[in-house]
């Protein structure tokens, strides 16, 4: 500690796990947006990753509540969020929004994969056949007309999914943005910044995962898809960067009472993670890479490699952004007169190891899901799609 802080502030209340939570939900919201771009807005170039992104969204979505649960002082009382919610609290929406959204994603996946599920149910044997038959709800009707209806319903669901995904992540921004006690958080831009960075991180994640999965499967990544994804990423990254800069610019220009401590926070405490990682390495560098690879007509291999690199950097940048918001907001005293420090412990319920495990878990879930419903295959017939 340096300077003065209220005695009760010595403990950092929202730890590394609360950094993970908006990072993970952000990935979900972003991944879902990509699938919606295909299903609703007809961006056909995203076809190779439309189903892929839905499965990825589900894998991360299922893990999203875990960091919150582990962070609670009384995890066993978590269900109270459903049983006695207080709707003046943005946080109370979590249970309902998450449940509704999970339901929506599951139904969407079911509709989009139903033809495959029916196909597997008919061609497999033993327990697998039982599983697929149950997933198909015992209905094997895959006539053109039925599939067409499925497609229509899926489209409607994806359409509903866009505001839902925005809500899922926008409300996380609201949780922070509506804390008037904290000048680093309190801005109406916060939900928008969270949303935009969510979309950016989700797109970057899909690009990284898609390229890696293609590598593992020893197939070439779809060139059009990757370059199109990179373009969309560039666009959203520009908006995101603009919003994030605007926030700080306004604080600087208005120079309220709190600017004194916030300017020190940025230049002395968060200079690596905010200026270095979030703005520099995580936003400006990838922006440069993406724009230059778009202009320079590179060969496919190089184009993909650059997009991959830029996306990886974006993921680091968005993670840093979550860190800078959550931890940065707790690194200075609400008396605006001093700084506090937070070093996540390695072990323990809220330690680095648990956090690392929580980041690996969605990938394990993803692998499991694609084992049963590979998004790149259709109804038993291996086919690039």
């Amino acid at each position, binding site marked *: 500690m340096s300077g*003065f*802080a*209220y*005695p*009760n*502030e*010595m*403990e950092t*209340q*929202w730890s590394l796990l609360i950094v993970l939570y908006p990072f993970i939900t952000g990935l979900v919201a972003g991944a879902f947006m990509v699938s919606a771009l295909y299903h609703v807005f007809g961006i056909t170039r995203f076809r190779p990753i439309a189903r892929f992104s839905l499965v990825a969204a589900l894998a991360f979505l299922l893990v999203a509540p875990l960091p*919150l649960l582990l*962070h*609670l*002082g*009384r*995890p066993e*009382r*978590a269900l*109270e*969020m459903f*049983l*006695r*919610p*207080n*709707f*003046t*609290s*943005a*946080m*109370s929406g*979590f249970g309902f929004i998450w449940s509704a959204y999970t339901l929506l994603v599951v139904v969407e996946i079911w509709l989009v994969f139903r033809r495959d599920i029916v196909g597997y149910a008919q061609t497999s044997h033993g327990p697998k056949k039982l599983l697929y038959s149950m997933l198909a709800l015992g209905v094997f009707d895959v006539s053109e007309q039925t599939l067409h209806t499925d497609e229509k319903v899926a489209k409607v669901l994806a359409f509903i999914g866009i505001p839902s995904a925005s809500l899922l992540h926008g409300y996380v921004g609201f*949780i922070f943005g*509506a*804390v*008037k*006690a*904290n000048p680093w958080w309190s801005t109406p831009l916060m939900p928008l910044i969270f949303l935009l960075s969510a979309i950016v991180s989700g797109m970057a994640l899909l690009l990284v995962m898609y390229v890696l999965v293609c590598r593992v499967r020893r197939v070439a990544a779809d060139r059009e898809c990757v370059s199109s994804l990179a373009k969309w990423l560039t666009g959203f990254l520009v908006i995101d960067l603009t919003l994030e800069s605007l926030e700080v610019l306004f604080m600087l220009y208005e120079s309220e009472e709190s600017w004194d401590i916030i300017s020190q926070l940025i230049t002395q405490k968060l200079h690596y993670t905010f200026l270095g990682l979030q703005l520099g390495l995580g936003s400006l560098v990838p922006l440069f890479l993406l724009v230059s690879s778009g202009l320079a007509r590179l060969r496919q291999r190089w184009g993909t490699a650059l997009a991959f690199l830029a996306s990886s950097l974006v993921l680091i940048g968005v993670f840093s952004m979550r860190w800078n918001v959550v931890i940065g907001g*707790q690194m200075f*005293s*609400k*008396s*605006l*007169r001093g700084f506090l420090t937070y070093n996540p412990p390695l072990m323990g319920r809220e330690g680095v190891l648990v956090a690392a495990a929580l980041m690996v878990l969605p990938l394990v879930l993803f692998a499991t899901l694609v084992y049963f419903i590979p998004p790149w295959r259709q109804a038993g017939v291996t086919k690039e799609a």
Partner: protein
Amino acid sequence: MAGITRRQFVLGGAAAAGAVVASRGYSLIVPTQVASKGLSQSEEPSAGHPWAFVCDTTRCIGCGRCVAACKAENRVPPEPHTTRTWVERYVITQRGEVFVDSPEAGINGFSGPANVKYEGLEVKKTFFVPKLCNQCENPPCVRVCPVAATYMTREGVVLVDQEACVGCRYCIQACPYGARYMVPPHAEVTPTGQTGVADKCTWCYHRITKGLAPACVEACPVGARMFGDLRDPSDTVAKVLKEQRVYVLKGELGTRPKAYYIGLEEGVR
């Protein structure tokens, strides 16, 4: 408590479930609440919020007896960073610098090594400021609690139902005054036997409801802390609020604190 009646949910069959949600959606969503008479409700409805607290910074001597009394009275965990009340020392220099400290939350006073810290400075003005929960009329902590575990009584005292608190710590983030803390998960001394939950000053609810002053007020040797009932015009606090110019902390945030300060200086927050 006797006479608790639960709201009963009447459920239709699976086919009617949708209709149930549509027609009774609201009652299904609002917190499961119990209607029964509490302490405040048993009295006649009081106009406004009858209790107020006054801290006189021109009298405070920084002895820390209030902090010690509070820890003992309320079984507050002994660590300095889990405290319901504390004392800050402000030192303002001729050059306009402001130094603030609160060693061990002020429980051991301000003599000793910490006193040396300001030697050599050209002190223009220096004083002590006692801090505690402001029992805001518009409390941000109550608004953000996801499970309605923290609430305001009819008399305007903000309390935490520690048997319901999930320990998310949103209220700690939302309090602009740093008045809240979490009872450490392995604490041996606890206010209500619950650990891993939020806690804060209750203005000694168990004392004030019996007509006694809060423990810190009782222990203050110089009358720097005052507590009173505003319905009683002869009350010291009512008089102070009538006759003196008082100030609240961070009034610009619109929290409308009910702890008032005499002799506050710009820069105290």
